[in-house]
């Protein structure tokens, strides 16, 4: 059952990812990205990370992508125009992509050979209280540094976007 669900949602994630690249209209691409994030959330859920799954759904699929779509709608961005058709481009590109992915997978496999097989439902520490305990007891420093990093990014965005007022 878990394997079937994994296959279905992995296929949806890959399909949405491809659609994201292939679509010409920014809204379609953004919605495909929402699809990728939603299926990723389901994959997290299958692996026992309930909290991470819901955070993925709320933060990425819910908040950040809504902002993306909001900006696209506000700028009224139209579909991009395809350039002059080159018939050989997809035929040459597809094997190249396959080759790059293959080499990448091989290198990762060589660099970090698997030590234990991942099984569904084996991980039991994905609930909010475990995450919270870990975050505030074992990983306080990285957590706080990350939050300061994000704060710097926010301040930077405001400085860049601010209108000059004399």
């Amino acid at each position: 059952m878990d394997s079937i669900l994994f296959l279905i949602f992995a296929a949806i994630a890959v399909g949405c990812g491809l659609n994201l690249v292939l679509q010409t209209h920014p809204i379609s691409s953004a919605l495909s990205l929402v699809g990728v994030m939603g299926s990723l959330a389901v994959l997290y859920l299958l692996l026992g990370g309930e909290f991470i799954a819901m955070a993925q759904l709320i933060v990425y699929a819910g908040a950040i992508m809504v902002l993306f779509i909001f900006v696209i709608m506000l700028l009224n961005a139209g579909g991009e125009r395809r350039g002059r058709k080159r018939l050989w481009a997809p035929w040459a590109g597809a094997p190249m992509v396959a080759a790059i992915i293959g080499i990448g997978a091989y290198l990762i496999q060589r660099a970090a050979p698997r030590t234990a097989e991942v099984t569904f439902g084996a991980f039991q520490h994905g609930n909010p209280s475990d995450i919270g305990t870990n975050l505030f007891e074992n990983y306080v420093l990285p957590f706080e540094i990350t939050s300061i990093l994000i704060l710097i990014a926010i301040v930077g965005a405001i400085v860049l976007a601010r209108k000059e007022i004399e």
Partner: protein
Amino acid sequence: MNFLILSLIKAAVVAFVLMTTLAYLQWIERKVIAHIQLRVGPRRVGPHGLLQPLADVIKLLTKEDLLPSHVNKVFYFLAPFIAVFFALIAISVIPFGTEVNLGPVHTAMQLTDLNIGVLFILGLSGMGVYGVALAGWASNNKYALLGGLRSSAQMISYELPTALAIAAPLLMLNTLSFRQLVEAQSGYYLGFIPRWTIFQGPVPQLVSFILFGIAAFAETNRVPFDLPEAENELVAGFHTEYSSMKFAAFFMAEYANMVTVSCVATLLFLGGWQPLWPAQYGSNFLPTAMFLAGAALCFYHGFHPARSFDRITLPAAGVVFLGIAVVFLIPPVAAVLLPLFWFAAKVGFILFVYIWVRGTLPRFRYDQLMRFAWTFMFPVAVANLFLTGLAVALS
């Protein structure tokens, strides 16, 4: 297999009750608004217009489905489905009462008890924005686009105070499962003050209840925050170009969101199905007393009829009320019905406040709405969360 059949039956019952509630909520809204405005409201179809929802459904189903020109067809058709899907699925984690024991079958009055139920609801409400935003964008209509933009900006802004207001009682109750939340609110202080979150120590969560209530009005696009569909500025906002069942889908989504938000407020702040005062002071006899009073009223007006047919219809209604009052006295049935009664009473009260506010308050201006969210709601919610956290840590 047993689990599968049981779940299917429960899903069917919940879906039927929810759909009926949504249809009749609209009738109640029209009636209450009418009485606030000194009108009588719908009364043509059935007694007191009680069959009006049925007539509306038939009308919406058989209306012509218009497709405006130059719309983005995929997203135009997808948007109402997204809106209604995420609005309806939220009911699956809401518990309605304690447990049902029918012979060998024991089951909770809930479709599924997630240990992250509260987060699940937050996630769904975030996804629901897409339906509205896409509907506005795909309709090829500038009013619809403005409505969609307003709505997405408003929902993003008000999601923050909502989440912060929810976080404060969660700190006190220390769980994210709705069923455990309600169980943590059982019992009484001094024997009569219920330990609901709005009364519970160390910090009674009255402030976050009010914040959540205000933010909930904005999240569901209701008056006084219904700027996405402000008719004097934007025709009908994001659903201007939708007709027939697609319009009905948006309508249903709005009412389903209202029901969900009221259920969440009840479970988080008002103690779910915990009665207002303890059973030893007779809280178990409240439904019986209410239905007896209703029956007495019906009999009185039946014997002093204003119209000739009142002589038959009102005593018949009185007999029905008497029957319901007796049903609440049968111990095994009452054990199931009493929690359901308290839960429905609280949800119904919040829904009534929704309609009451709609009949009372004028609409905000858009800049007022945004300023209110960021300069008032957000700081107050943060301060409340901080105070609660401090008190919980110290106690």
